[in-house]
């Protein structure tokens, strides 16, 4: 979709999760600015190389690349990035980043690293899916996002009834509460 159609609505161009070598863990592009996979990879490489040495572990950092604003935050061997247009409100982008970062933290129960992320790639992908839909911000509250994703990842082979669902949700909430307390 062209940006002009959503000109006033805050929008996200991409969400990128890379490892400490700059390799993709999970990415999602919502804009046509990078039409091919190689264009995407070039952008990721540029962003990774230029941010690699910065300290974005306690507070989210920010920089500009190719006339885009990129906010980013690192933990262990994972690098989280969120990109928006250069006239986008920087704080909205950083809210999206924080939502992504925190909900992944909740879902992986604090063990946020590349191994854990790859082993739970389904969770990461669902997480991105719950935060942004086609560039539009869907939800920014980490616990709500994690709740939505977790309620789905419970393995319930038995036929569904309202009860098992509420049970499932209860277990998920318990997990969350525990991980929050950590």
């Amino acid at each position, binding site marked *: *979709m062209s940006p002009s*159609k*959503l000109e*006033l*609505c*805050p929008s996200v161009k991409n969400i990128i999760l890379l490892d400490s070598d700059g390799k*993709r863990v*999970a*990415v999602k592009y919502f804009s046509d600015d990078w039409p091919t*996979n190689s264009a*995407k*990879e070039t952008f990721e490489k540029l962003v990774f190389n230029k941010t690699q040495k*910065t300290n974005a572990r306690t*507070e*989210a*950092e*920010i920089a*500009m690349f190719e*006339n885009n604003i990129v*906010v980013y935050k690192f933990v*262990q*061997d994972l690098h989280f990035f969120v990109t928006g247009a*250069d006239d986008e*409100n*920087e*704080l*909205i*982008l*950083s*809210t999206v980043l924080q939502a992504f970062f925190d909900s992944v933290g909740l879902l992986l129960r604090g063990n946020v*690293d*590349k*191994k854990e992320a*790859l*082993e739970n*790639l*389904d969770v990461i*992908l*669902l997480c991105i*899916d719950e935060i942004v*839909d*086609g560039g*539009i*911000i*869907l*939800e*920014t509250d980490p616990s709500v996002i994690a709740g*939505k994703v977790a*309620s*789905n*990842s*419970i*393995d*319930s*082979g038995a*036929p*569904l009834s*309202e009860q098992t*669902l509420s049970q*499932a949700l209860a277990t998920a909430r318990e997990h969350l509460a525990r991980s929050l307390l950590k």
Partner: protein
Amino acid sequence: MAQSYVKKDDDRDDEVEYSPFMGIEKGAVLQEARVFNDPQLDARRCSQVITKLLYLLNQGETFTKVEATEVFFSVTKLFQSRDLGLRRMVYLIIKELSPSADEVIIVTSSLMKDMNSKTDMYRANAIRVLCRITDGTLLTQIERYLKQAVVDKNPVVASAALVSGIHLLQTNPEIVKRWSNEVQEAVQSRAALVQFHALALLHQIRQNDRLAVSKLVTSLTRGNVRSPLAQCLLIRYTSQVIRESGNNTQSGERPFYDYLESCLRHKSEMVIFEAAKAITDLNGVTSRELTPAITVLQLFLSSSKPVLRFAAVRTLNKVAMTHPMAVTNCNIDMESLISDQNRSIATLAITTLLKTGNESSVDRLMKQITNFMSDIADEFKIVVVEAIRSLCLKFPLKYRSLMNFLSNILREEGGFDYKKAIVDSIVILIRDIPDAKESGLLHLCEFIEDCEFTYLSTQILHFLGIEGPKTLDPSKYIRYIYNRVHLENATVRASAVSTLAKFGASVDALKPRIFVLLRRCLFDSDDEVRDRATLYLSTLGGDIETDIDVRDFLFGSLDTPLVNLETSLKNYEPSEEAFDINLVPKEVKSQPLADKKAAGKKPTGLGAPPTGPASTVDSYERLLLSIPEFANFGKLFKSSAAVELTEAETEYAVNVVKHIFDTHVVFQYNCINTIPEQLLEDVIVIVDASEAEEFSQVFSKPLRSLPYDSPGQTFVAFEKPDGSPATGKFSNILKFIVKEVDPTSGEAEDDGVEDEYQLEDLEVVAADYILKVPVSNFRNAWESLGPDCERVDEYGLGPRESLSEAVNTVINLLGMQPCEGTEVVPPNSRSHTCLLSGVFIGDVKVLVRLSFGLDGAKDVAMKLAVRSDDETVSDAIHEIVASG
């Protein structure tokens, strides 16, 4: 945490082995996808396979059409499973596969069933998937459910429907527009994000109805918008309404300003910043309106969060370009950001300070920057160097410390682009600030003593050859130049030999010593160096009277454009006839186009570089000098901007540039032929000057040939009374011979037909005789001119639309430079003073003080005070206003 991080580094090899996707292969995964067809579904296994498929897509792998269809069909089988987790993965992969229309039908019924499920998660996701993959026809079937979903009590379902609505509006607006009532209801939702999504959709539905948008904004700005995101949206819509309501509300407060200002006290930083940004972006914002926004941005500057500091300093940097005074309050906070860890923030802070700083703070600032320069990347250093250059041109008196700074950083380590930026800056300062010449040249001399870039060395040597001989003591540069002959590579040595020769040619006293040095160069190991030395020795040694042509050829600037010379040389075929440089065309082709492109390019990225000194005028001057008939017109006073003489998209595109000389005016017609099948020859503009009595045509230069899409120029020159600002109207007819061109061979026919083309009229106005020249301190300049040649008079301008319209009219009429931002009239003012400066033809400095007053209804009265060195000029300004 830190511990486990260290541990991981230790056994990294193990970790790589650990990846669940190690050695994954598309073919194998596609095979695995067959489990989707098992009668007894293993939900866990299926989820894993979908994850693998998604992993492949995520890594940039693509599926062929056949593969994608196959996966899609087997995935649809999974709707049988009632496993929640698996269903989520099914939704995800369907969106990623983006099935074609006939495939969509297969899943439609399953998804519609999910849309009516009791499970909210099913409903929300099914809506999102269905709306993503569906086309218009299907939409009418599900419209009813979507409408209901918009007002669903579960916020996740409502948001899913609303966001899908926003996407669908691009493709099926007529359907989504029917949801208006439901969406309106959703705007009142208690759920924060539902409100945000509903507001976004409602605005998009109504965006073409200005009145409706204005009503929406009016009602919501009074009401209670809960979500910060929705609040940000509302601020954007409000600014849009303010922008569109335009300047027709000059009286009274700016509408909605109060709302924006109240948002500055919101509890969410996102909203505060959005409001502050909206205020700084207001059209013709006043300093009173700016103040509260600047105050909150100032608070952000000292935040612990880099994102907040960046957002604030970037906005303030932008404000500083138009309202430097408004930002000065933040200078102290800004200075602490110079050492910010985040280099983007530091650079933005520096460039902001350089814009807002006054003359007295320059020295302190330079000290700060000196500490800061050593540890930033080259690209940021270039931004700083460019900011320093413009600062130096702004405060010429400070050249000493700025030049010192430049020379210091020139000595330090740095890449080519960075060094080039510094050298360019020094060259510009030498050219524009006479006092800086001697020290600047010496700094450059020192630099080439130890310069690793051949390009820069040769450029500097060339520049020394031009500027060095004009200094008080040219001999002191000789040592630096001759050192190059000993120590450098052949290219630099050759360049140094040429420079030496230039000194010898220009300074007679040095000639014998230069001869000695050049003779030594005859033993150089390189051909080019020896050749040059030999050539210069014989030229300089010859009799000056007879060899004037040779000297001109060697030391004068080459008046033939290099591009043209290159083409001519390529076309030259060896024959009896020697190549004659005089036959090379001297008109510069397509030069205005290139200029336009450069000017149109918006400076982007961090701290847009300041635009260099007007190069257009330089290139015009060179172009005109290349035409011998104009050589005796004297110095070019001013070239106007190009005025279009044809409508856009016509057969022939013509614009004109007016070149003003003391006693002549030259019209340069830039023509483009936009018809591929035509070649125009002997193009000329027939000018009728019957409505311009003081002008008489003296010369016209036709354009020999004008092929398709390659710009060319034809000139017409007029004589006019010396120094007088004669005005008049000229009508123009383009006359030419048309020749048909064969589109396949590109060859033109031999016979042409004469034809004419009517162009728009052209006017020479008083403003053409005044150059916009700013003064840094108007009051000082005004006092120093004194009241001797002051002329004051009052004028009634009659009823005007607004005060600012009257001010702009007078500024445009005079074509002078507004000073100190006085061209902006604060809203609601009843009176205004505007200060203008300029240079009148004949190089007479003129200052104008305009006092406007609004009386009664819309009548504007104006007092005009003019000061200059020449009372006839002061009178002339009054005449312009009186007759304008």
